[in-house]
Each structure stands twice: as C-alpha cells, then as structure tokens.
C-alpha cells in the first residue's frame, strides 16, 4: 500500500495470529461477550421494522449513489466550495497524507486532534504525520486507548474491544499517570480531562465522514462521545477525510441510511450526536473552525468501481454488523487479520488495497455461513464476493478472467492438479461410480487420519454400499 505499510502487522501472518488468538481465552471471552451483546441489541433495535424492505431501500440508495458517482462527486465539490469548504482529491493514501501535511504546514500547525476516521487508519495518517513532526492524537476513547497502547483498532466501531477494564486501567496508569482503578466512570472522566486540554490546544482537527450529501454540501458525522463535535468545532481548522464512495445525493437518503447504520452497528435507534457540517465559521458566528477542508480519497476504490460485481463492496456504510455476526471474527478477534478493516468487510475490501497476493488468506478465512450478508444493512452479497475473490486468487475461471491486483498468487500447481483430477472423476459418472464403489468396498483400508480434519474430529466412515448401488438394487 504505502512505504509505511510495515508499520502494520503483516497481513500474510493471518494463520499464526489467528492461532494465537484462539489459544488466548481472555481474547476469546472478550470478543464472544461483546459480539453476543451487539447481536442482541441489533435485533431488538429493529423490532417493529420491516427490516427486509428497509435493507432493500438501503441497498438501492447506495446503488443509486454509485450509479451517479462521478456526477455526485462534482456536485458535492461545487456545493462545498460554494459553502466555503475546500475540496482536495487524493488518488491514494500517500497523497492524502501529503495534502493534510501541507494544510498543517501552511498553518504552522504542530498538533492535530482526531475524531474517529477509518480512512485515516487506512492511510496510516498518524504514523505519517509523526514522521513530519506533527503530533496526531486520537480523541475517540477507544482510539485513544489503542493509541496509548501503540496498537491498531480491533473493531471499526469499538476499537479497544479486545481489552478489558483492568488492562485499560494499567495502560492509562503507565502512560498518563491515571490512578489504577476498575471504575469505568473514573477512567472515562480522567480521559475527558486529559483530552479537553488537547482539544483546546490543537491546531487542526481531523475527522472522518459518514455521509457526504451532494445536494446541500453537507458532511455528516455519527458519534456518541462528542469528541467528533469537539474535533470539528474547537480547533481553528477542520480537515475531514473520506473515501470517494461516501457521497449520497440528498439528505433524504441520509435519513434512511442513518436509521440502518446506528441500529446495525450498536443497536442504537440513533447515536447521541448526528453532526451535519456545511461550512466554516461565518464572520458573525462566535465559534467553529475558520477553515474546513474535505479530502476525497480514492485508494483503490475507482478500480473496484470498474467491475459490476466487485462494485457492491463500495456500498458499505461501515457499520461493523458483519463482524459482529461473524463466527470467525468472534473467534480470532480483529487483530488477527492484520488489516485496517477486519472481519467480513475487510476480507472483501482489503485485497483491493493490499493486493490479492498479500491478502490471499483473507477470502479463505470464512465458512461462507452467510451471517454477514444476512445482516448487512445495504445487502452486500459478502459470501458471493468472497467466492469471487477466491476464484481470483487462484485464476480459477477462464470465462471470467481475474482482474484484482495480485490475482493468481494463491494458485499452486499441486492444488490445481488435484482439482483437475477431482473434476475429471466427477464429470464422468462411470469413473465416479467405479471409484466410489471401490472405496466403499475396501473401506477397511480407509486411513484413520485425514490431514487437518482429524486433528479435531474422527474421519467420516465410508458406507458399505453407496447410495448409487443401493438405489440400483432397490429398482431390481
């Protein structure tokens, strides 16, 4: 992705990290408990709704926006400019980082306070800015904790979900001198105090965007803590950064997507704050930033946009419901993936950002159970996209040639040969019947071990006669 990619844990190390997480009862328990709670809350938040119809609307709104994406981006740019917000475009994360640095340098800014932004994680903004001598401090409590620990978020909505109170207390004690305590209120209050100072002294606030509305030139932010409002109101300069796919035509669209987003994410009917920003401080106003910027980041999205099937990836509104409901994510946690976006959405999005060669294990780490697709508020067919990427990673379809960067990297001649042999046998009924008949007849020779399968289970036992044979006998 970028030359600073080494800062991240290696995406290729999925297996060992997953193994480690599974062997760690504390991590397992933290995630299980959290995910159980989130699933139950989501369910109850949608009670009384015609959820299927609402999801259909969500999907259509996103598809309509994507269908008009270039027009909407231009309309958004025009409206924002009219409103006094400066718009920047970045083809990748590096360019986005440079744009933000240049804005900071022009203002002689040394300290940046951040609201939650996954795109800034994607481009590793904090790491970049610190290399440029600019301190970037996270202000979302979860992100703040993760930053103190020098880690990355393990969930896109709840970044510090992998840590329990005791661990957080020790961390805050070591890094900030907060007294050790298991009282969450106390820990929260002490973070409030520490961060208030930072808000007052920050030169620039950087935030993400949940929806960018083309019709009115409005940037919408969804949050509970108020740090997003602080970030976008207190420092004299606010820089919002977002992926190019986040634009929607109208505020009406937002009313539906918001209803889906918060209920899907945390089971809330709405978040505490829904912050709609349409311009910098006007001369007669007494607060708010004097400068507002929007950085529109492509970083692989325009490439995803080219393909009719992969395009669905861009519908995502980043609610995290797919990970909350994913049995794999629940077992391994967010860090095992080694990617900005973990869980099912990460498995279909990250291969485009890091390449299918780097991210080859991601699409396979799924039982294709379909829980993710079932809860997705915008009906992204995640399991189908996982299969598509599996095909791309082994160049497995001559009719529909692979197109994702790094495709084919997982293809091994041995595995390809095995599938060819398998295919030959199962495409020829006579061969198949001969083979299966033979196998069942000599079933006592069946090995008791069958690779990784029998590490956890006994081998399935061959029947004495196949169904083919028994149906033939039955007829006679």
């Amino acid at each position, binding site marked *: 992705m970028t030359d600073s990619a080494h800062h991240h844990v290696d995406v290729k190390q999925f297996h060992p990290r997953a193994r480690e997480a599974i062997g760690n009862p504390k991590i397992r328990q933290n995630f299980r408990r959290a995910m159980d709670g989130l699933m139950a809350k989501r369910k109850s938040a949608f009670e009384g709704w015609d959820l299927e119809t609402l999801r259909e609307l969500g999907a259509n709104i996103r598809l309509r926006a994507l*269908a008009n994406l270039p027009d909407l981006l231009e309309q958004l740019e025009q409206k924002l400019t009219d409103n006094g917000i400066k718009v920047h475009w970045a083809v990748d994360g590096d360019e986005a980082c440079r744009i933000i640095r240049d804005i900071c340098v022009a203002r002689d800014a040394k300290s940046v306070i951040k609201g939650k932004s996954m795109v800034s994680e994607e481009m590793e903004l904090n790491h970049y800015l610190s290399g440029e001598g600019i301190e970037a401090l996270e202000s979302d409590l979860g992100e703040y904790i993760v930053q103190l620990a020098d880690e990355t978020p393990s969930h896109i909505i709840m970044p510090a979900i992998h840590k329990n109170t005791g661990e957080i207390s020790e961390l805050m004690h070591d890094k900030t001198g907060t007294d050790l305590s298991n009282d*969450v209120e106390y*820990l929260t209050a002490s973070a409030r105090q520490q961060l208030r100072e930072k808000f007052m002294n920050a030169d620039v606030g950087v935030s993400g965007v949940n929806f960018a509305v083309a019709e009115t030139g409005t940037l919408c932010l969804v949050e509970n*803590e108020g740090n997003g*409002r602080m970030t976008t109101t207190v420092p004299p300069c606010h820089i919002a950064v977002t992926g190019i796919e986040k634009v929607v035509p109208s505020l009406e669209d937002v009313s539906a997507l918001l209803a889906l987003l918060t209920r899907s994410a945390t089971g809330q009917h709405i978040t*505490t704050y*829904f912050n709609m920003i*349409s311009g910098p401080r006007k001369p007669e106003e*007494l607060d708010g930033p004097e400068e507002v910027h929007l950085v529109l980041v492509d970083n692989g999205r325009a490439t995803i946009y080219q*393909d009719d099937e992969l395009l669905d990836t861009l519908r995502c509104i980043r609610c995290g419901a797919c990970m909350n409901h994913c049995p794999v994510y629940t077992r391994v946690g967010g860090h095992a993936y080694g990617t900005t976006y973990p869980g099912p959405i990460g498995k279909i999005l990250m291969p485009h950002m890091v390449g299918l060669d780097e991210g080859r294990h991601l699409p396979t780490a799924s039982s294709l159970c379909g829980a993710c697709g079932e809860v997705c508020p915008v009906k992204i067919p995640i399991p189908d996209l996982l299969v598509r990427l599996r095909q791309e990673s082994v160049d497995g379809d001559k009719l529909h040639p692979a197109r994702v960067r790094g495709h084919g990297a997982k293809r091994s001649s041995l595995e390809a040969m095995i599938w060819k042999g398998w295919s030959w046998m199962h495409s020829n009924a006579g061969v198949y019947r001969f083979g299966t008949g033979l196998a069942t007849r000599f079933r006592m020779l069946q090995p008791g071990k069958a690779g990784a399968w029998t590490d956890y289970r006994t081998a399935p036992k061959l029947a004495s006669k196949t169904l083919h044979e028994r149906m033939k006998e039955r007829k006679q």
Partner: protein
Amino acid sequence: MSSRNTILQRLRNRSGGTLSAPECDFSVLKRPDWSTAERLDRFEQMIESVHGEVHRCTEDSWVDRLAEVLTTRGARNLLIPKEHSIGLRLRTEAQREDLPNLLIYDEPIESWQSVLFNDVDASITSTRGGIAETGSLILWPTPDEPRLMSLVAPIHIAVLRADELYTTLHDAMRAQNWASGMPTNALLISGPSKTADIEQTLAYGVHGPKELIVLVIE
C-alpha cells in the same frame, strides 16, 4: 493530469459501462400518525432510555423547573442565549435567588475558551423541534446560540416546544425543507455524551455533557 481529473475520468470511463440507478421507495420509513401526545410520550420514553431527562412544563412554569433542576445539581452558573426569548425571559428574572449566575456567550470563543471549558456548569439552548421516534433534538446553532453551547458544559438544558415534535427525521427534514439549504452546523442530539469503549460499560459525559435535560413546553 490532476488527481481530481484522474479519479473522475476513471469513474466516468467505467470498464463495466454505465450503471442503472434503482428507484428508491422511502415509504418504509413512514411511522403511524401519532398525535402530539403520543409523540411526546414516545420522545420522553426514548430520551429517558438513554439517560436523559424530560420535564413537562408550560410557558409560565419552565423557569421554575429550570431553577429546580439547577439548584438540585448545585450549578453555580448558566450560559444563556442573548437574543433568543429564552435568554430574554431569564434575564428579566435574573434577580431570582434560585437562579444561578447567568452568563452570555457574546464573544468569540478564542477570548474565553478556558472559562467555557473549565468554569461553566450548565447551558440552556432552544431547539428547532424534536424527533419522537428516536428521541432527538434538532439544533441549528446560530451566532446567538453558538455550536459549543450544547457541547462543553457538564449540563445541557434544551427547551423544546411540544408542537414542534415530528414523528421521524424524514418528516422533520421535509417539513423544515432542509434540502433548500443547511446552516454551517446542524445537530441532532439524542442524549448526554456517552461511551461504551471500555469493556462495553456505559459511561456518560466522556467529552460532552454528562446530563441532558429537556424542558418540554406544552
């Protein structure tokens, strides 16, 4: 070529061809036609479910209620709007013993930031209505009621007129014609500031107000 044009050109010359846009039917967002009383009940229930407070008052009684609320909490001062009728009314009653010291936000934040952040106990603002379904207040900050008035003090008191309660966000934005133009900042506020980032345990007042108190004028 500029990054802007590179991106837009790639989107326009999409290799998969142009995309057709599906129709969007918003009727699923429609809720039953609640009466004003039902809307208020729902609003109250939703605000209380997220740790907020609702006090039903009248045009005559709201200042008494406010005084009570502030006295119980020992607030030393209250930030009020200068021009809005809420502020005017309070200033006429400024001599009341049970009201704390009244402060007015009439200078740019830069000149008094640390006072606002450290010394203001409570603030009161008007609203542009509310949303029953989700228990939300609509705030459009103005020069008279700047953005930080509803964010920085530990107690935020909002005055809501019962007849300005809409059923859904969708209804509210259409009735108020938001599409015709938005202010520099507009907000939905649906409870006090909160977080569940430490082991999913709820804690209030993490960055913004610890308490949200709504005075509903019926």
